[in-house]
């Protein structure tokens, strides 16, 4: 099939600033940005492992640094970001999965999201309880 370019030129609109034009895109960019928070926290934890390997003095130094007010503030921000991260990923998770049928009925997206949350909360509670037990 042939088609001429038309009597004039087709106009291509610029994409600059695209994500600011729609609240959906702003939320998407926020979701993507939380990956940075995950990376930062991974570095914090990795640093902890390195410090542990370097001996007791180093380890205690790292724990001391974690207790500083700036560190606490950073951890609060990181925690908030991780929660947004988890929320937005659990929302998109059903989109990554093929249709699941249980007893002839199709599994709803909301069920998958809730299962993700349920598992997260259960594991978090279990880990927290474990941490409490071992800290005695």
């Amino acid at each position, binding site marked *: 099939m042939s088609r001429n370019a038309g009597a004039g030129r087709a106009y291509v609109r610029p*994409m600059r600033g695209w994500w600011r*034009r729609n609240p959906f895109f702003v939320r998407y960019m926020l979701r993507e940005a939380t990956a940075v928070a995950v990376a930062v926290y991974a570095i914090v934890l990795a640093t902890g492992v390195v410090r542990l390997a370097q001996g007791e003095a180093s380890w205690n130094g790292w724990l001391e640094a974690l207790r500083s007010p700036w560190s606490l503030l950073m951890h609060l921000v990181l925690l908030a970001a991780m929660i947004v991260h988890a929320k937005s990923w659990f929302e*998109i998770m059903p989109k990554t999965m093929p249709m699941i049928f249980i007893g002839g009925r199709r599994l709803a997206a909301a069920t998958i999201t809730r299962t993700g949350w349920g598992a997260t909360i259960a594991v978090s509670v279990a880990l927290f309880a474990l941490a409490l037990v071992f800290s005695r």
Partner: protein
Amino acid sequence: MSESATTIRIDVLRYRPEQEDEPVWQSYIVPYADDMSVLQALQHVKDEQDGTLGFRWSCRMAICGSCGMMVNGKPALSCKTFLRDLQPGPVRIEALAHFPIERDLIVSVDPFVRKLEGIKPYLVPRKPRSLADGEYLQTPAELERYEQFASCINCMLCYAACPQYGLDPGFTGPGVLALLHRYNADSRDGGRAERMQIVNAEEGVWACTAVGYCSEVCPKHVDPANAVNQNKVNSATDYFLRFLSPRGGRT
């Protein structure tokens, strides 16, 4: 909702390449009624005020896919978008985002159609069957696996919603990948291996970053985001299986 509203203002992004180099906004006042659609408002302008206004439409019932455009910055079908939800106005109407504008509210559709043609969007029968043998058997459960993806009306709202497509028009895109998945998921089809090449390509599923807005705007609840993203697993599996078997992938 204002009871006294008898008119509403609509601002349309006009573009007449024979007259101007760049699009320009133009305002119109149209009569308002409770059940009027944006399409009816545009038809009123064209019929009574300005015959030069160009826009595509046909069925008026959200099944032909002609009338996609941006209404107040969101991709929508003009025949199914009602003025009562856009009060008090003005309503901003422009051509579908991420597509070159040919004229007023008319965008270039050809690239989309070519992509659609390129994915083998037809049944490649798994087993041959003569007409005399009657229909292939397919249970309601098997039909359910692909029916929603077969409901795409090719309106391209998902392309207007997809920033990755906007940034790289080479991306195969949500609608076409959903159609590809429709055939892969059809129990009668055996052409999956032939279509994997398109799935696996960088401009295939891997250009998608799961923004998810495409599924949000789809007027037929096709859920293209699901079609694309579940195929990332298939694509990865296909890639690794290639190391295990000489021909690689699944048939």
